[in-house]
C-alpha cells in the first residue's frame, strides 16, 4: 500500500522545465568541471612532458598553445579549474559550518560564480 502511494506521486523530470536554484547550479558545475579535469589529465601530462623534454619540444608545445583555437580550449579548461577550485573551497568552508544557512549559501554561490568569471577573464587576457 505504502509502495503504491509512493509510486503515484507526481514526477517532473523534464529537463526543460526544471529550473535549478543557484546552489544546485554551482554544485552540478563542480561535479561537471571535476569530470572534465579528470578527462583532460593525459593531455596535460603530454604537454608537460614535451615542455620539459628539450628546447625543441618546448617550442612545439609553445606553438600549439599559441594557436587561437587552443587558447579558446585553454580558457574553457581554466573555467573548469577555477570553478572546481572556488566551489571546492566553498564546500570546505561549509564542512566547517561556515555560511550554511540558505540565504548565506546563496550569497556564497554568487561569490563563487563572480570569482570564477573574473579569474577566467584575467586568465584569458593574460594568455592572449
Amino acid at each position, binding site marked *: 500500500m505504502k509502495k503504491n502511494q509512493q509510486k503515484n506521486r507526481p514526477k517532473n523530470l523534464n529537463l526543460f522545465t526544471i529550473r535549478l536554484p543557484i546552489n544546485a547550479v554551482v554544485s552540478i558545475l563542480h561535479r561537471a568541471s571535476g569530470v572534465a579535469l579528470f578527462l583532460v589529465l*593525459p593531455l596535460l*601530462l603530454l604537454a*608537460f612532458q614535451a615542455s620539459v623534454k628539450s628546447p625543441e619540444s618546448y*617550442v612545439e608545445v609553445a606553438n600549439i598553445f599559441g594557436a587561437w583555437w587552443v587558447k579558446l580550449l585553454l580558457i574553457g579548461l581554466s573555467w573548469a579549474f577555477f570553478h572546481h577550485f572556488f566551489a571546492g573551497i566553498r564546500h570546505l568552508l561549509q564542512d566547517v559550518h561556515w555560511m550554511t544557512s540558505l540565504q548565506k549559501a546563496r550569497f556564497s554561490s554568487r561569490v563563487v560564480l563572480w570569482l570564477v568569471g573574473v579569474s577566467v577573464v584575467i586568465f584569458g587576457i593574460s594568455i592572449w
Partner: protein
Amino acid sequence: MLIELLTDKYPGMRFWLTQRLTALVMAAYLVLVILLLVIVQPARFEAWHALVSPVWFRLATILFFASLCMHAWLGVRDVLRDYVFNQGLRGYLQIIVDVLLVIYFVWLCFILWNL
C-alpha cells in the same frame, strides 16, 4: 571524537576526510605554483626547466599529483555510483579509471625522474 570517526565503525569517513585533505594539499600547491609562474614568468625553455627542476619542486609535484589521483579516484567513483546503475558496467568502468590513474601517476614520476 575525530579519531573515533576514522575507525571501522564509520567506513565512509576516511574517504570523506581523504577527499578534503587532498583538496587542501592541491589548493596549497596550486596557489604556490600560480604565484611562482606570475612572479618568475618563465618565457623560455631554460627558465621553465630551471623552475621545475629543483628537488623540492619535484617532491611537491609528486605529493600534489598523488593527492590529485586519490581525489579524482573518489570523485569519479561517486559519479559512477550516481549515474551508472548496471553493476557490471560500473565495475569495468571503475577498473579502467583505476588503471588510468595508476598509469598517470607512474607517468608523472617518469617525467620528473628524467628532468
